[in-house]
């Protein structure tokens, strides 16, 4: 049985401009110790997916439907007090901006000990000791004295380390990381990614890594799910998906990422147009207005995410079904 199983998860918001379907029926499974990269552009629903998994969608205006099974328990059916026992304990979350997600009025020590006292029933002194160990593990110097400091006394990279240490204190089975390095500089990003990989090796934590940065996903994820306008349009093992993307959106996205080894005499390739307004979705495939190989039927029927004939891969473009390329793909997958 998978560690996490998401079935038909949907989140909609009732707004003045109509119903916004931020997440529009997505399903995926995750195994123990695995890293899933959830990628997409802004507004594609990747962050809302993460929030929904922990029941953090404000209602109203949000409405969440679908099932989330975690570790044999249906957490989407839990009450708020029961969910609180899961959050920060068996599933924890790292947010994008460590400046706004740490409480500026409390010391690092106070914020870190809270989870341990609450979930594990530790005494305050024991919790402080464990918090210091946690800070040491994420590479902060002088962890004991850091506990007495306030968030503003730390740099961005250090604050993100504190967030990670805090997220790992209760040794969660699943870590939801929402753009954990986006606010950081590249040299600091490299440190944090290295740290997360090491933590995962040590504790066997499964990670959902939400990011718009395909370079970050390429280096860290085992599998990748690409989201567009609230849906997963393609999913598969990282190496295969990058080497041979099936969905036209994935293809466009991958080729528009600037690379340090691309040909600068050529124009950068881009996807024409802009993502659709979620309150006024076109009928049919959401990507159809920007798709280079759009067909008549794309504009009327909304395609489902289906297994694409290659083991472990699925794809929501009905035009991709050619057996030749499927064969080529499995040939590539063989060592």
């Amino acid at each position: 049985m998978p560690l996490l199983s998401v079935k038909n998860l949907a989140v909609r918001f009732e707004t003045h401009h109509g119903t916004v379907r931020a997440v529009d029926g997505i399903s995926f499974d995750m195994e123990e110790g695995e890293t899933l990269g959830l990628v997409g552009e802004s507004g594609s629903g990747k962050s809302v997916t993460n929030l929904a998994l922990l029941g953090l969608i404000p209602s109203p205006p949000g409405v969440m439907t679908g099932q989330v099974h975690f570790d044999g328990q249906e957490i989407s059916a839990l009450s708020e007090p029961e969910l609180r026992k899961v959050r920060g304990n068996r599933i924890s979350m790292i947010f994008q901006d460590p400046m706004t997600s740490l409480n500026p009025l409390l010391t690092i020590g106070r914020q870190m000990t809270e989870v341990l006292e609450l979930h594990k029933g530790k005494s305050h002194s024991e919790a402080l000791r464990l918090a210091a160990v946690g800070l040491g593990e994420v590479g902060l110097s002088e962890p004991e004295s850091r506990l007495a400091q306030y968030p503003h006394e730390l740099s961005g990279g250090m604050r993100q380390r504190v967030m990670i240490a805090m997220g790992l204190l209760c040794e969660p089975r699943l870590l939801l990381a929402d753009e954990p390095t986006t606010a950081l500089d590249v040299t600091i990003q490299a440190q944090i990614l290295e740290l997360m990989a090491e933590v995962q090796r040590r504790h066997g934590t499964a990670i959902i890594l939400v990011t718009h940065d395909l370079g970050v996903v390429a280096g860290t994820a085992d599998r990748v799910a690409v989201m567009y306008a609230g849906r997963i349009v393609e999913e598969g093992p990282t190496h295969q998906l990058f080497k041979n993307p099936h969905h036209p959106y994935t293809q466009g996205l991958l080729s528009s990422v600037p690379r340090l080894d691309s040909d600068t005499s050529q124009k950068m390739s881009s996807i024409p147009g802009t993502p659709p307004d979620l309150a006024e979705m076109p009928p049919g495939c959401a990507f159809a207005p920007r798709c280079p190989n759009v067909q008549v039927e794309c504009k009327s029927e909304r395609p489902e995410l289906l297994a694409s004939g290659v083991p472990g891969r699925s794809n929501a473009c009905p035009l991709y079904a050619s057996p030749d390329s499927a064969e080529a793909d499995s040939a590539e997958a063989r060592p």
Partner: protein
Amino acid sequence: MTRPLLEVQNLTKHFPVGPRTFLGNAQQHLRAVDGVSFNIERGVSLGLVGESGCGKSTCARTIVGLHPATSGSVRYEGVELTTLSRRGWLPYRRKIQMIFQDPYASLDPRQTVAQILDEPLALFGLGRRRERRLRVLALLEAVGLNPRHVQRYPHEFSGGQRQRIGIARALASEPDLIVCDEPVSALDVSIQAQIVNLLAELRERFDLAYLFIAHDLAVVRHLCDRIAVMYLGRLVEEAPREEIFKNPSHPYTKALLSAVPYPDPEIERTRERIVLRGDVPSPLNPPSGCPFHPRCHQAHEVSGDRCSHQVPELLQKGDRSLACHLD
């Protein structure tokens, strides 16, 4: 040899911070830009890269006169800009324009596109009303927007389209130099590429020079002829694009390049990576000697303690300038 279009020499910008003394002088100075020199030739693009807080945006804003310089000189076609009065600046504002990072904050929400684009034209007296109206439509066309949307307000456009309006506004006065401060950082990847292509196309068409500020090296590589790398208020290396990417000399340039993630799992998981230790030091209290030495992975290769005591000068060698004691 002809003069460069823009000559920046030993430019510094210090901000007074913290409590003041009895006489009202600041006790501490934040050394945002600390002696930066470079030239930009006509029609050439210079990329200024570095991490947040290194002073690249302050440098750009000081050059265009949005901050008064603390010391140093900025010359445009030989004319010193740092000592100009507001009125004296006017003719140069026409020739030096700026594109900002945030397309949401840099357009007046109460003005229509027509008003936004007409303002520089009217200010510099570029044509009569009817001519200006035609020019506004031509500008929209040039940046890939529908001229029929000329009466719309900024909020009716997407982020990428707004950045196109910002670009059209910068183009309006027919500048020679456009200072671009992170113009694509706030945009999604698929839109980012559209804007980079547009900037490249406009450069060809109007023979523009760019000072292009960015932290994304891959974007800079696409657009710039030369690249200057900045760290803690100083340039550490400046060279033609291919030199920087194929043969980086400064340890910081090397580390920066190796930290850029590749969108390719095979390369990303096999290449050697220099992971720097620690954080960027505070510009309030920069380290002695070379500002990079506390994080430098090659400082031990220099004999003695020069790295921690002596600030390395930016020295020109052929087509490359480098500020490092290693050699």
